């Protein structure tokens, strides 16, 4: 028997990283400030999670400027989309498995 938990991705265990991925799945590009507002987080807290996701190759960072202020935006990578969708499927399997 296959263990359903095996397909769950450790990276998405954190609610914040899971939230970031959910948002990026729906939006081609989103700024750091919009993410912060949507997830109700502080700068430092969100930044560490974004670095983690970037190091895993799940998101891409674009640094730009609006006037003199930096404007950092993020988008999801193909690998990130695949990994997150598999994670969602694994969650679904867990629920279905329990109802049998």
């Amino acid at each position, binding site marked *: 028997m296959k263990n359903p938990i095996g397909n769950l991705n450790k990276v998405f265990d954190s609610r914040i990283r*899971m*939230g970031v991925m959910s948002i990026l*799945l729906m*939006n081609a590009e989103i700024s750091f400030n919009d993410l912060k*507002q*949507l997830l109700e987080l502080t700068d430092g807290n969100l930044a560490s999670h974004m670095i983690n996701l970037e190091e895993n190759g799940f998101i891409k960072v674009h640094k730009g400027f609006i006037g003199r202020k930096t404007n950092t935006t993020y988008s999801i990578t193909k690998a990130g989309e695949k990994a997150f969708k598999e994670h969602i499927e694994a*969650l*679904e399997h867990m629920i279905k*498995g*329990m109802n049998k």
Partner: protein
Amino acid sequence: MPEQSQADQSLEALQDIKRMMERSSRFISLSGLSGIGAGISALVGAYVAYGWIVDYYGSDVKRGAILLRGYTPDGAEELKWKLIGLAVAVLAVALALSMWFTWRKARKSQLPVWDHASRKLLINMLIPLAAGGFFVLGLIDHSDWNYVAPACLIFYGLALVNASKYTLTDIRYLGILEIILGCVNMYYPHWGLRFWALGFGVLHIVYGLIMWWKYERS
């Protein structure tokens, strides 16, 4: 039972994902009362405009001949500017009322009014609306009053259909109704003001009531 709690956790995680996906892509604080407010201001505006038009054209209006005869230079120019001023005022009041009710609803549910989702909603609504605005100004510039009301209805309807991807999907049906009304109005151009009042007044109020009933009642 640990298995049960694992399923619960998964379910919770999925609900979280769904909520974040929705919240980041749709502006859900649009209030039904906004529709009712906009509808009432449209009806009041149409009523005032009707009075002015009847004053100007006399009893002919009863035979539906308002726009058929074209217009005489002096009073017509004045009426034109009065009507344009009225239209701007109605738009301003309607916008102010709908923004206020929506701001109130967002505050109540502790959601931001100006965020990623509302910005996307606004931009996507503004594209057809701006095109429609230029089109209608062009019609007025060419003194082609017959098609002002249908053009308003059709472009507004298209704006709503476009906007429905970024807010509560129900607004799509309102958009489709506005488009149909505008298309029918093309063939009854003398009834422009009545169609306009029906589309911007009555439909808004009915839509607002339904939305309020569906999402905000409690």
